[in-house]
């Protein structure tokens, strides 16, 4: 349970970090970026990951910020989850992201874990990727070729894999402000408080003249990445969000899922069942919040 040997660098600026990653890549060195370490450290301890070099972003102060910018909330990738949880701006303007943050791990994890790290790690059971799909979060990354933006829909590739290049550093996560009157909800089931979810659902629900105008629904913990449940979303368009309709949409969402993961804690069938129950509860909660 001790990590294998590695070399360690903690560059003080983003430019130096990007340059270092590029140089290590050219030299054929297996280098890994260390953010808050709350997922990477267990992988190092269990030697699931054995990089030759760790490049720690912890000293780069310019990646730690939360600010409002033209209708969006920009969060520096190295901002701690605890700071996101404590941010009145996020709680007020993007309550779904705020609620998701509170579901991540325990306080010790949120104190050190970074906002960017969870997205880059892309654990299919984590809350953030599903929220990214629901909200159309946009990611900024900087590599040797400069900066680029990546929409959430193109970001998550498969199990713990994103479209970030190995030389790119995720620098910013941009959340749209939740439009006034939009309902939202996130619910998950875990065997213990703070554990990774066996299954979970996140949603936003917008009404127009009493009917669903735009519903976004995503599941996590079931497939190799978080997934949008577009069949249910489309089914709800133009319908009144009454209990029977929402239950029907939830059943549709569960049925449409690709075969869920199966493990000692939860079979594929049980996960599918959880998605139906959680989707129904989420849709009811979001509809009650929508104006």
């Amino acid at each position, binding site marked *: *349970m*001790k*990590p*294998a*040997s*590695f*070399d*360690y660098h*903690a560059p003080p600026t983003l430019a130096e970090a990007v340059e270092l990653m590029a140089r290590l890549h050219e030299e054929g060195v297996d280098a890994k970026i*260390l953010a808050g*370490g*709350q997922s990477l*450290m*267990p992988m*190092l*301890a*269990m030697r699931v990951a054995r990089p030759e070099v*760790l490049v*720690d972003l*912890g000293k780069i102060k310019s990646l730690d910020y939360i600010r409002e910018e033209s209708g969006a909330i920009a969060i520096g990738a190295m901002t701690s989850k*605890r700071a996101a949880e404590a941010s009145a701006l996020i709680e007020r303007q993007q309550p779904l992201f705020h609620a998701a943050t509170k579901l991540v*791990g*325990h*306080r*010790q*994890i949120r*104190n*050190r874990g970074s906002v960017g790290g969870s997205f880059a790690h892309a654990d299919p059971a984590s809350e953030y990727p599903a929220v990214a799909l629901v909200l159309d979060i946009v990611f900024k990354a900087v590599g040797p070729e400069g900066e680029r933006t990546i929409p959430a829909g193109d970001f998550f590739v498969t199990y713990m894999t994103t479209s970030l290049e190995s030389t790119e550093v995720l620098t910013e996560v941009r959340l749209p402000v939740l439009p006034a009157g939009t309902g939202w909800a996130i619910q998950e089931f875990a065997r*213990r*408080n*703070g554990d990774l979810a066996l299954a979970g659902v996140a949603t936003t629900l917008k009404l127009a003249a009493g009917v669903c105008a735009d519903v976004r629904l995503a599941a996590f913990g079931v497939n190799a990445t978080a997934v949008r449940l577009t069949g249910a979303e489309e089914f709800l368009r133009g319908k009144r969000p009454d209990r029977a309709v929402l239950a029907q949409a939830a059943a549709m969402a569960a049925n449409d899922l690709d075969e869920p993961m199966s493990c000692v804690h939860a079979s594929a069938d049980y996960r599918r069942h959880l998605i139906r129950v959680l989707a129904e509860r989420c849709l009811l909660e979001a509809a009650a919040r929508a104006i």
Partner: protein
Amino acid sequence: MTTKQRICITVNGVRHEREVEPRLTLVDFLRHELYLGGTHVGCEHGICGVCTVLIDGRSARSCLALAVQADGCDVTTVEGLRDGATAQLHPIQQAFVEAHGLQCGFCTPGFMMTTLELLTENADPSDDEIKEALGGNLCRCTGYESIIASVRLAARRLREQQGA
């Protein structure tokens, strides 16, 4: 082939300079380099919470931090709770003794350090807030009820102390 790194970490108010391997975790640094055995090692992958310390005032699992990451930081361990001048137990420690917050004591340092952060932020937490705050610490002896009672007692003592 690994290059050792020179680091300086302040632990319980005392600065310590050492050369360490990058792979050394903070908890192993505390125990093996500084001989501060109060912080225990449990699961070593961030599940059990026994190694909880404060890094710059924030609770953290010291098995999920490298010593090199804590370079320049201020770390508080369970050894830092007791009053250095009078050797008196901290009100949190005293409350855990009186309200039977421990049996075997293995998990206790982690619970007390998490409690220290909680009570610094919230002088009068509800039972639900205590349970939420302690959710990242496991105990196999007490069934938790006496730990929650200990935190309540500590909170009351600290409020009285502050009021006095």
